[in-house]
């Protein structure tokens, strides 16, 4: 169906674009993939009354400038994909500003229909709009609709499809930008048209306009086609610019924007809008804001809301997460019974099942978290959070919206960096967003907590609660400082303009929330799942191969034989039997297990991971880590709680359950190589080193390049290494 009509939905954020898209396509939609772009473009299908078409939901934008990824994606889509018509959805209660984007589509010349949304809300605010009059004045069909209830959307589609059939050619609207610029436009358009410069993709008038606006992106497209002509145009624009600077003290792009608004104002003045109420009165939304962004109540309420979100996410997801865990343990149990012993079985359980379990175990958590965020976003509260927190976060080169991602990642100890990284999507400023998503893994997530708790319990048992709180605080301080460090180095550059809309509070639609939640969850499963299975198997192999040589294994086997030979066969039979074994038999079992533990320790040390761990001692003496700690930290890359089980194996304790690690704690506390300073150095390293690979997979996905994944691993590990070395070296001299 490649020649099926395609319709693009475009409009301002908060104009109800997604609601309209959901109403038109229902569940028949999917997220489009554009390589190297982190902006989603959703596609869906519409069919009703014998009319059918493909619908594309473009990102919400305010303008067609080249400054944000959203705007560039929308522009490129229109030019490269050539949709039959765009439905430009505008908020009737906010018509003047919304028409600014419409105006730019008209300048581009794409066939377009205006969907005048939320006429019900506008009416309540005393704003009545005459759609026919508006249509007559701008020369485009205008359809009044209420996307939320579906009112008028069938008529909208009939109009749009008919309009697409009648208008296949792009016809740029001629808007006046003042005498000087109009003359320049004619001049430039003529040159462009006579040279057929870019005219196969763009109307000549549009190219002229973009050159006048000094639109970097369009200029570089022009340069790549014909440098000579392009620089000739740039020279002409410079001439006009200088003239304007001298006569009116303004730049062409500013003048163009002013005239666009002038054009809109002149239209709206011609009996399009009728106001029946004073337009300065306070609406319900403003009254809510007087409380929610109040100087004193505002921050307090925000704290409660964020705590609520956090509790909602982590409390209610605990049960389904446990179900997932139980399911995978059950699966591992099945494999244990039915698959013959050997490397395949070990890989199946430790590599495949644990790996997939690690990914799917997060699914309920992610669903709850995205439901919570969608709720805050769709009601309009998230924008208020950004508004209130911005002053604080700006100091560190971040954005007010960054706070959400930090909290979810473990800003309140026990979060998870995976949904945290994904939550940075709500940030529209690219540099601030990158700095946020690279530093959220510094927070104390739920998997680091048992490791920290183990060491705190073993070495700082007197003030456990205070120490845990201290480490949460430390995570915040370090994450924010690291963000600042990134913003003055690899991500340096002026902050992205804040200019943020505070949309009126609205009740979100339940359908919208569910679609949003499912979409994000599915993306996570798809992207993370493939990477993680591979890495999980690699890590398993590293900790398994090469196996102990036969001669070494024989030594352990001999030891076991020796123990067995010394006791009576009756006692051994007792161990195999169904009854509770006697204390003597238990003692024998303990001896046998000790040998098994020693063998596992020897095997781990002999494996690739063990060799790496031993080799790392060359540098790891700085923070005071021996090979045992090193292997555990390597294992922690799979998931931080693996640090405990690996540490257990390397101390010959066999597998240690992270939830019940008392024996390990006692072993460490009594081990002469461990002391308070080393424990502190390890805790700090665990807090800040490479994120687990599920998080890394998400970082790669969200940042749009695997290079950021590599950067994250390297930067964090280096950061942690320096910090823990400092603590250890200074600490061991002081104590």
């Amino acid at each position, binding site marked *: 169906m490649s020649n099926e009509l395609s319709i693009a939905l475009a409009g301002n954020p908060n104009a109800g674009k997604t609601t309209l898209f959901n109403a038109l396509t229902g569940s028949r939609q999917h997220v489009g993939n554009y390589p190297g772009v982190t902006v989603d473009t959703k596609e869906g299908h519409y069919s009703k009354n014998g009319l059918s078409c493909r619908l594309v939901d473009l990102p919400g934008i*305010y303008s067609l400038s080249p400054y944000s990824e959203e705007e560039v994606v929308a522009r490129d889509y229109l030019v490269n994909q050539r949709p039959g018509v765009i439905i430009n959805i505008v908020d009737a209660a906010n018509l003047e500003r919304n028409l600014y984007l419409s105006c730019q589509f008209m300048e581009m010349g794409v066939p377009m229909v205006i969907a005048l949304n939320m006429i019900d809300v506008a009416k309540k605010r005393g704003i009545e709009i005459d759609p026919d009059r508006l249509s007559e004045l701008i020369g485009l069909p205008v359809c009044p609709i209420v996307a939320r209830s579906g009112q008028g959307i069938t008529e909208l589609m009939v109009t749009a499809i008919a309009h697409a059939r009648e208008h296949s050619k792009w016809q740029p609207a001629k808007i006046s930008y003042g005498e000087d610029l109009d003359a320049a436009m004619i001049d430039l358009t003529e040159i462009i048209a006579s040279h057929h410069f870019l005219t196969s993709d763009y109307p000549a008038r549009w190219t002229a306009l973009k050159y006048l606006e000094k639109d970097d992106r369009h200029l570089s497209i022009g340069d790549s086609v014909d440098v000579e002509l392009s620089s000739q145009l740039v020279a002409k624009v410079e001439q006009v610019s200088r003239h304007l600077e001298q006569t009116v003290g303004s730049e062409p792009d500013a003048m163009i924007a*002013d005239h666009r608004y002038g054009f809109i104002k002149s239209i709206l003045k011609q009996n399009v809008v009728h106001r029946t109420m004073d337009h300065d009165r306070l609406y319900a939304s*403003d009254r809510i804001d007087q409380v929610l962004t109040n100087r*004193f109540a505002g921050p307090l309420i925000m704290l409660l809301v964020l705590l609520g979100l956090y509790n909602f996410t982590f409390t209610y997801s605990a049960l389904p997460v446990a179900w997932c865990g139980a399911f995978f343990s059950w699966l591992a149990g099945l494999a244990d019974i039915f698959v013959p012993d050997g490397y395949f079985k070990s890989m199946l359980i430790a590599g495949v099942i644990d790996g997939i379990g690690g990914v799917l175990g997060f699914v309920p958590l992610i669903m709850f978290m995205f439901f919570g965020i969608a709720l805050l976003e769709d009601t309009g509260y998230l924008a208020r959070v950004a508004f209130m927190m*911005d002053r604080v976060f700006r100091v560190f080169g971040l954005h007010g919206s960054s706070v959400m991602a930090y909290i979810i990642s473990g800003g309140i100890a026990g979060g998870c960096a995976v949904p945290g990284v994904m939550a940075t999507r709500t940030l529209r400023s690219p540099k601030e967003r990158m700095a946020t998503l690279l530093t959220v893994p510094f927070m104390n997530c739920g998997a680091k907590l048992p490791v920290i708790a183990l060491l705190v319990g073993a070495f700082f048992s007197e003030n456990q609660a205070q120490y845990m709180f201290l480490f949460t605080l430390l995570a915040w301080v370090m994450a924010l400082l690291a963000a600042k460090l990134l913003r003055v180095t690899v991500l340096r550059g002026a902050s992205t*303009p804040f200019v*943020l809309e*505070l949309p009126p509070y609205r009740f979100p639609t339940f359908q919208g929330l569910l679609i949003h939640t499912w979409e994000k969850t599915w993306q996570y499963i798809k992207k993370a799942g493939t990477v993680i299975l591979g890495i999980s198997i690699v890590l398993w192999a590293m900790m398994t191969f090469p196996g102990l040589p036969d001669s070494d294994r024989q030594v352990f086997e001999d030891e076991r034989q020796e123990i067995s030979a010394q006791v009576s066969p009756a006692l051994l039979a007792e161990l195999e039997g169904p009854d509770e074994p006697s204390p003597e038999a238990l003692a024998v079992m303990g001896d046998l297990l000790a040998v098994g533990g020693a063998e596992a320790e020897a095997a781990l040390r002999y494996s690739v991971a063990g060799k790496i761990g031993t080799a790392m001692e060359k540098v790891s003496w700085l923070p005071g880590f021996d090979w045992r700690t090193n292997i555990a930290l390597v294992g922690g890359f799979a998931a931080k709680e693996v640090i405990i089980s690996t540490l257990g194996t390397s101390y010959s304790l066999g597998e240690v359950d992270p939830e019940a690690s008392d024996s390990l704690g006692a072993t460490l506390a009594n081990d002469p190589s461990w002391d308070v300073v080393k424990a502190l150095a390890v805790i700090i390293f665990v807090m800040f080193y490479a994120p687990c690979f599920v998080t890394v997979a998400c970082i790669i996905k969200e940042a749009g390049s695997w290079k950021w994944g590599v950067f994250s691993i390297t930067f964090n590990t280096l950061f942690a290494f320096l910090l823990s070395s400092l603590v250890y070296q200074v600490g061991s001299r002081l104590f």
Partner: protein
Amino acid sequence: MAKIFLRQMAKNQSGVITAVKVGGELGQRIRDMGLVPGTEISIQGRAPLYDPVALRVMGGTLSLRNNEADFVEVEVEDE
């Protein structure tokens, strides 16, 4: 009538924009949101730390950081 910058405006004070004295991305963003000469605005409030500032424009609410508001010149009634 006096010309002041948006940052200096008090809560609930209103005025008409006379100039936006910045170009580039910031200038573009400010204009995109409807802050162009001739537009009427009023200050709705400020964030708890007095920055950013929230203002009403064309029936919607916008917020700007103070250092961004410094570029917007407004004509207000004399006190």
